[in-house]
């Protein structure tokens, strides 16, 4: 995997992933997380709970943001922390864009740090999962 260096990061820089949300993927996530609530994989159950379709697990969205950050920091970087709020439901079977935008680049406590705004956007541009992260990166 390509290594990102702190020196090369600039404020305003954006990173993204576009991810499908098939029912198969949600079932794999259910097995990985132990969250077997039927609104995430049973169409009839979801519709019986006044939902338009099965919906993506919030925690999966949070961990997709984690993957975006992990791929950004590479093997030699470290995610100090990340957090997201689940503000809206994402219907399954639609692509989601997982995004991050560098808001601050600084050095503190001997670390080369980068703050980012992060989130998950639906195809129509609606933001459902806003959050923030701090990562540390190696210097050249």
């Amino acid at each position, binding site marked *: 995997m390509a290594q990102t260096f702190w020196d090369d990061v600039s404020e305003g820089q954006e990173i993204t*992933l576009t991810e499908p949300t098939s029912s198969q993927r949600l079932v794999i996530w259910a097995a*990985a997380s132990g969250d077997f609530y039927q609104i995430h994989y049973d169409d009839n159950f979801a519709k019986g709970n006044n939902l338009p379709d099965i919906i993506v697990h919030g*925690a999966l969205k949070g961990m997709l943001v*984690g*993957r975006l950050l992990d791929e950004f920091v590479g093997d030699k970087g470290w995610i*100090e922390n990340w957090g997201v709020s689940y503000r809206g439901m994402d219907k399954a079977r639609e692509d989601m864009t997982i995004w991050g935008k560098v808001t601050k680049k600084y050095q503190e406590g001997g670390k080369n740090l980068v703050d980012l705004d992060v989130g998950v956007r639906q195809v129509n541009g609606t933001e459902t999962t806003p959050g923030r992260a701090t990562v540390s990166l190696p210097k050249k």
Partner: protein
Amino acid sequence: MPDELPDLTPEMKAAIGKPGASVTYEVTTLGIRTFGRAVGYKNPIYFDAAASKAAGHKDLLAPPGYFGMPVFNPNATTGPRADFESPFKRNLNGGTEVSPMEQVYAGDVLEAVTTLVDLKLDRGRLGQMLIRTSETVYTRKADGKVVAKTRGTGLSY
């Protein structure tokens, strides 16, 4: 709709700040790979122990945010947190924060202790809600190191 609560009950207030029972999480190769597959990782260090070791790790590495699965007990009669009766029976996941502190590997056994750090009543489009903020500390049994802290927000309505 549940009954309106004018204030937190004495049981609810007493639960704030009280650590829950320790829950054992097992981190397995199968669990790591299933998590990696669901989240769409491509990096072989999360799937192939040899690739992990070649990258300097002691065993198959867990992706950030993966702390294994709690050991399932088919005879458990209550959930891990039953400190108070709540009139709100529907739950939503409000948010997640993760602070990784140490790498986590296949074979690790973690003890997770969750503390309710805040509890408040609020009102939203779903009516009155109980908002719980919990912090969980994951400690590796083998060396006593805290590997991560997480914070979760739960909304009951």
